């Protein structure tokens, strides 16, 4: 099914200034070139799916965008900033505006869902009052509860996250990301290791955030049905380059499968 669940912004709109513009981006690891000169730009308020075979450099690209991995060369302009040129303090401020949803949710297992969500406020606050829900100011606790409510877990606020299901943990991670008040969301296979139903719910939640709050989303997913259902645009990575770029409305499962087969053969 190609039709989106909610109305979408025009794909590749030329009118809006790109929220992310990448030019000539490369990343070399010893003995291996992972990214070989990427060029693409994303319009704001869109959900973009990034697809590609294992080892094609998708996760490396996501990490390079926020400099969790330093790119070897190239330009990244994101949220109006020249990312490679950011000094450490400015980099921290920039990262605060980018919410990342990981394949492994990376929550602190012994803490409650509410404490984990409150950690998201460290994007703009610091100090011990942001470390745990029992120490947090009332306004922060209220906002964290709103975020948990948004992902449907307000009733599990004080439950330790290691006793929640995988899907619930991923939703807590999304609530923590919302607590950041991000302008851009990067999601690295948020539907991996989740059962089909829960994976659908997580992807649907991410897309609804894009639609409701006008956020931009770049999401990696290996599930073609999710790529087709929950994105406005599809970028395909093969051999370290952008090998596919088309609006989701013009894509179909057979074409994407052909892309994967071709990419793996290459």
């Amino acid at each position, binding site marked *: 099914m190609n039709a989106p669940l909610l109305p979408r912004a025009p794909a590749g709109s030329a009118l809006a200034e790109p929220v992310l513009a990448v030019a000539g981006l490369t990343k070399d690891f010893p003995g291996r070139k992972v990214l070989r000169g990427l060029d693409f730009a994303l319009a704001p308020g869109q959900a973009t799916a990034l697809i590609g075979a294992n080892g094609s450099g998708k996760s490396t690209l996501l990490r390079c965008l*926020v400099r*969790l991995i330093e790119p070897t060369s190239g330009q990244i302009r994101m949220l109006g900033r020249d990312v490679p040129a950011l000094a450490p303090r400015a980099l*921290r*401020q*920039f*990262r*605060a505006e*980018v919410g*990342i949803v*990981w394949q*492994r949710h*990376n*929550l*602190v*297992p*012994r*803490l409650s869902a509410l404490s984990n969500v409150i*950690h*998201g406020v*460290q*994007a703009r606050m*610091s*100090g*011990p009052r*942001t*470390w*745990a829900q029992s120490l947090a100011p009332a306004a922060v606790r209220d906002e964290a509860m709103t975020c948990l409510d948004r992902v449907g877990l307000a009733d599990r606020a004080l439950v330790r996250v290691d006793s929640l299901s995988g899907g619930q943990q991923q939703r807590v*991670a999304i609530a*923590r990301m919302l607590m*950041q008040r991000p302008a851009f969301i990067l999601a690295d296979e948020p539907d991996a290791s989740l059962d089909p139903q829960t994976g659908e719910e997580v992807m649907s939640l991410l897309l609804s955030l894009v639609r409701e709050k006008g956020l931009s989303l770049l999401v990696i997913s290996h599930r073609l049905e999710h790529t087709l259902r929950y994105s406005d645009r599809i970028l395909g990575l093969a051999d370290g380059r952008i090998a596919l770029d088309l609006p989701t409305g013009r894509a179909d499962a057979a074409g994407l499968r052909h892309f994967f087969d071709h990419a793996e053969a290459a």
Partner: protein
Amino acid sequence: MTTLAPSRFQHRSLVEYAAILAVLALVATSLAATAPALDKLGSGVVRLFAPSGMLTQMFPPDFTRIVPIGWKLLETLQMAVAGCFLGLILALPFAILATDRLSPHPLVRHAARALIALFRTVPDLVWAIVFIIIVGLGPAAGVMAIMVDKIGFAGRFFAEAMEETDPGPQDALRAIGASRLGIIGSAVIPACLPSFTATSLFALEKSVRGSAALGLVGAGGIGVDLKVAFDLFNYDEALAIILMMLALVIAVEQGSGWIRRKLI
């Protein structure tokens, strides 16, 4: 066709055989050089149980000074608790600085590790003598000695616990833009809490055992009374002191074991 089971023993290289022989030779020469001769050991044990022997004179234990000994025992416990508390508090920053992922600079990490190793390697009796010179005879020197010993003991185990934590939550907070202190307070310490608790309780047990011995060099606590009892050949009173120390150590071990089971 049935697959044959593999050989029970792996084939070893000549170097491995040489290493095993070297270890065996080290053990044999160490025993030969330092272990007591069996005949000497036998005659010594007989002397211990002779009518004028130390063990014979220890019985029955003399509890006539139970009240002053009890107060000294309380002082010993207080030394252990105070020294252990201060040592554990100070061990945490040392451990953070000694951890690969959390240390601000490799030089700082090496310096912190060297200091922790120094605190751990020098015996607490030596630290007690150093602090007697600094603060004079009495329990304050004992508290300082226990504190330094605990920085070495807990610093190492705290650092190891922090090294072994899952880096995922820390990376996620770093990606959010959290500060180093924020990552430590939000992700590292909560993840290490069970290990920190276990180490702290072991440190307390070790402190109680160690604080009794510190009195032998004049650093306060029950050890002074034990030394005096032995010096004056009051072996029955010495046994009473040893039994009371044993009761204290067992009580602390049982208590810490109970807390460990409840918390971890």
